């Protein structure tokens, strides 16, 4: 066998090995056929009960803390027997939808993010600059920012030097900002909405055909702190995924 033939044989063997490795790298990623949407209703967030002073009624006879302590220091929602408004009006949700793109450029796969939460009211500690629309009872409308947050764990095929390898990414936060506006109705607080996508938040985050499996931890909504801005450090948890049984 000539030197040239030997060289070609070695190169061919290496190419086959590399193909095998690449295939093996992407061959360890079981995934569903589909998983969408994730639609989370949200409820006011309460602090954890650390020092119980009551007991809940049976059969859920667990230690409890009276009074309940809202996790947010800056925002609340109208509730007749808590803050004197005529009726509880707040309704909120956050929804994630997988958008399946057409294979090939441009990358049009995405994760759509929509959220809305109504009757958002300021507590006394919040800056007057974002609390300027008074209501008939309880706090004024909130016109600052909110931020949806969830830790995500992404497993996909867009890793390694050639961006073709399957891997699980270290857990990362996924913050999405909402803007709030005042309402003309003095019986309800501000309205906060989000209508965006993962690629709008981080261009190119979701690509066609990468088999992106996204585990989503508990979804919560943070307030904007005293100044109503989510970029400053004093934000607290306003709402989290949950349900309400009246």
């Amino acid at each position, binding site marked *: 066998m000539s030197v040239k033939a030997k060289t070609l044989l070695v190169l061919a063997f290496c190419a086959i090995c590399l193909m095998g490795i690449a*295939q*093996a790298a992407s*061959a*360890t*990623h*079981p*995934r*569903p*056929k*589909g998983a969408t*949407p*994730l*639609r*989370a209703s949200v*409820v*006011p967030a*309460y602090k*954890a*009960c650390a020092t*119980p002073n*009551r*007991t*809940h009624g049976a059969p*859920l006879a*667990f*230690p*409890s*803390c009276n009074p309940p302590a809202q996790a947010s220091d800056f925002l*609340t929602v*109208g509730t007749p*027997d808590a803050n004197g408004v005529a*009726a*509880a*009006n707040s309704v909120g949700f956050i929804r994630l939808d997988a958008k*399946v793109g057409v294979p090939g450029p441009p990358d049009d796969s*995405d*994760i759509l993010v929509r959220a809305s939460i109504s*009757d958002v009211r300021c507590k006394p500690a919040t800056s007057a600059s974002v609390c300027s629309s008074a209501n008939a009872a309880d706090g004024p409308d909130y016109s600052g920012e909110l931020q949806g947050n969830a830790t995500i*764990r*992404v497993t*996909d095929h867009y*890793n390694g030097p050639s961006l073709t*390898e399957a*891997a*699980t*990414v*270290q857990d990362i936060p996924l913050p999405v900002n909402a803007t709030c506006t005042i309402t003309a109705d003095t019986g309800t607080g501000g309205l906060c909405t989000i209508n965006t996508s993962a690629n709008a938040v981080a*261009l190119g*985050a979701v690509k066609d*055909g*990468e088999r992106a499996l*996204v*585990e*989503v931890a*508990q979804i919560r909504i943070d307030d904007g702190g005293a100044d109503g801005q989510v970029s400053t450090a004093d934000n607290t948890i306003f709402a989290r995924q*949950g*349900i*309400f*049984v*009246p």
Partner: protein
Amino acid sequence: MTAARRRSLPVLCLAMGSMGLLIVPQLAGATHVRPAGATPFRASFVTAYKPCAAPNRSHGAPLSFPSCGAPAQASSFLTVGTHDANGADAQSIGYILVRVKTTSPEDVLITSSISDVRCKPGTNASVCNSPNAADGPDYSGQLQSNATLRLSDHYNGPNLDEAATVQDIPFPVSYFCSNTSDTSTGGFCTINTTVSAQIPPYSFDGKRSVVGLGQFEVSDGGADGNVGTADNTAFLRQGVFVP
């Protein structure tokens, strides 16, 4: 003080005491803000992976974070069909739907299903007895959904009329899985229940229950397929999948 005034004093004290008692429960229940409504909650499920503790790769931009190849499934006992991973077509779809029933008796309705659930080699043959054309056999053991609850309501204290937040509690719900006759898809797991059925005789009526929900996770039944034993591992978690 006249005799008439002395006679009226106990009555006055009783009246003031009664008013005080009326005010105390009102104050106790006056610190519990709540929404007009919060329902439904629907989570789709994705395959659960172990966290990346010792990165050996990096994800492509813009999510240029450290990553771990190859991905490691969190479940040691179950999987789902995926053509380039195990030769079976991707068929699995799973979700949980939690809805509030607002008419008396108020309740929380829980519906969930997960398809194409397959055994890995470590799972007991007694719950893996329906082979498929490719990859593992159907799973016919148990699954268990779990989410931590943080409950704030008006059903606390000696008179069961005080508002309070309960310490976080787990809320496990078990599924039963069955074989399918189709040799291209795995087992089918389902649950259709209510909270009052899970913890009888609980009634939600008028308690203004604000229920914060943690992340939903579905555990397998361990090697024996029984969620009552201790070796269960995470199989699925709430999430989304972009193909």
